């Protein structure tokens, strides 16, 4: 991988379940600090691609590289530690843990806050130091999403919109290079969606994050994504600049159906 500017590169990724090709020859290139969209009708294979990129499925064909490093077929926790974090289409928080603890769990494996079991066991200064820095970092992340006040509530008691935000905060806590968001605006009202767009932009610009986003909300996609890939029946239908792709007749057909005159 000679190009240093590429964060994620997939080469001919493919997977089948039984006879169904859920993804076939998917090639995506995402540059560093880009906000990239993955769209397509229901069942087009978007979430399948996410599951491959996070190690839930091992692809039958093809490989993918994060920042030049081949991560194909690695275990999920390894891929996460190497720098890919995600949120889920249906929220999967640790419901019976407090809001801040959800974020702390994500922080535990970062090298920055590591201390040896020995240091923890004997409560040496370094242990408290790393615990404190970790709490500060968790609060900082919660502040970005306006959840600082709610940090001691149980995650299941948050409103739906806030649960979505907490999921993003938790994913960011693992200190990823690439953030995968699976329909972050699903179930949100227009006002919450607008707020979410702002937050996503903030993450990209202020935290220099590279983001790959699955979304159905076309307004959100058109509003924030720089480039798009459209999947249909597991295959790439169109790819390129957002405005070009959204005006592509094939894409319109896939979404709205053929015009029958």
């Amino acid at each position, binding site marked *: 991988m000679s190009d240093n500017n590429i964060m994620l590169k997939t080469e001919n990724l493919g997977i089948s379940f039984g006879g169904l090709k859920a993804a076939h020859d998917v090639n995506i290139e995402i540059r560093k600090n880009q906000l990239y969209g993955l769209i397509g009708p229901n069942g087009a294979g978007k979430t399948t691609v996410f599951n491959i990129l996070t190690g839930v499925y091992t692809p039958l064909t093809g490989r993918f590289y994060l920042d030049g490093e081949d991560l194909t077929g690695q275990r999920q926790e390894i891929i996460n530690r190497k720098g890919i*974090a995600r949120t889920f289409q249906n929220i999967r928080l*640790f419901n019976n843990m407090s809001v801040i603890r959800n974020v702390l769990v994500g922080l535990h494996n970062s090298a920055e806050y590591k201390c040896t079991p020995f240091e923890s066991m004997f409560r040496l200064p370094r242990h408290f130091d790393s615990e404190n820095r970790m709490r500060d970092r968790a609060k900082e992340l919660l502040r970005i999403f306006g959840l600082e006040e709610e940090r001691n509530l149980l995650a299941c008691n948050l409103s739906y919109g806030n649960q979505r935000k907490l999921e993003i905060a938790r994913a960011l806590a693992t200190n990823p290079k690439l953030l995968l968001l699976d329909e972050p605006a699903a179930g949100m009202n227009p006002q919450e969606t607008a707020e979410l767009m702002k937050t996503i932009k903030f993450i990209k610009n202020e935290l220099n994050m590279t983001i790959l986003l699955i979304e159905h909300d076309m307004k959100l996609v058109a509003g924030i994504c720089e480039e798009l890939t459209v999947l249909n029946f597991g295959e790439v239908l169109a790819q390129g600049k957002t405005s070009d792709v959204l005006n592509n007749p094939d894409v319109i057909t896939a979404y709205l159906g053929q015009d029958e005159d």
Partner: protein
Amino acid sequence: MITLIDGLSLGSIYALIALGYTMVYGIAKMLNFAHGDIIMVGAYAIYVAMSFANPNPVIALISSIIVCTLLGVFVEKFAYKPLRGASPLAVLITAIGVSYFLQSVAQIVFGSQPKPVSGWKLPKIEFLNQFGITTGAVVTLIAGILIMVALTLFINITRTGSAMLAVSEDKGAAKLMGINVNKIITITFAIGSALASFASMFYLLQIPNAEPTLGAMPGIKAFTAAVIGGIGSIPGAMLGGMVLGVIEKICLSIEVISPYTTAIEFSLLILILLVKPTGFLGRTTKEKV
């Protein structure tokens, strides 16, 4: 009063064993029916350590903890790990198989006759004795409570504890948070088995005989306790153990119903399953679509 202390002391033995059941269930989502037999192995470890010349109870206790912990990790690695993702029934049958395996091995090595564990008792304390309370009961109760407090702190304060909670809630999401789920399951088995070794130590204080089927009855009763308290819930296991211990001792102290003690305990299990299947402190799980 005496019955209550005896009951709570027996209850803390049940609670220690029930914790092993409930933690493994909460994290690996399986019922480890071989858990009772870990206690049996722990009892034999104490028996062996105490039958050397110049037996030292501390060394016996430590060796029992080490043997049980290693056995728990070993069983998980060779019997359960290959079945990860298999149907729950297959894992359950395997656990029963492991249980019989351990009993048979103990029978081959040590014979089927009970082996008296010599010198495994505590000095009498006059002050307590005049009320008819044994030292063993008091020590069991206090140590049991201390162990449970330590465990609660461990779960709530340490990172490993957080990771364990996370895994018990959602394995998939935990993996994507960079948590090594297999490692957490191994740690859970290690802790559960170490708790079982404490249970075997306290059990021998009450009945100082090691035999191959020693673990079966306390094992199944502790399982009952875990279900009563709400399986998967750590405070539930403690509560369930205590309740069951007190009920057992109360039943035993009333002459008319004492022969039916075990029947009453298991009827309670059936009653709880009918009325409140999640137990006292169990979570009601809502399936989200």
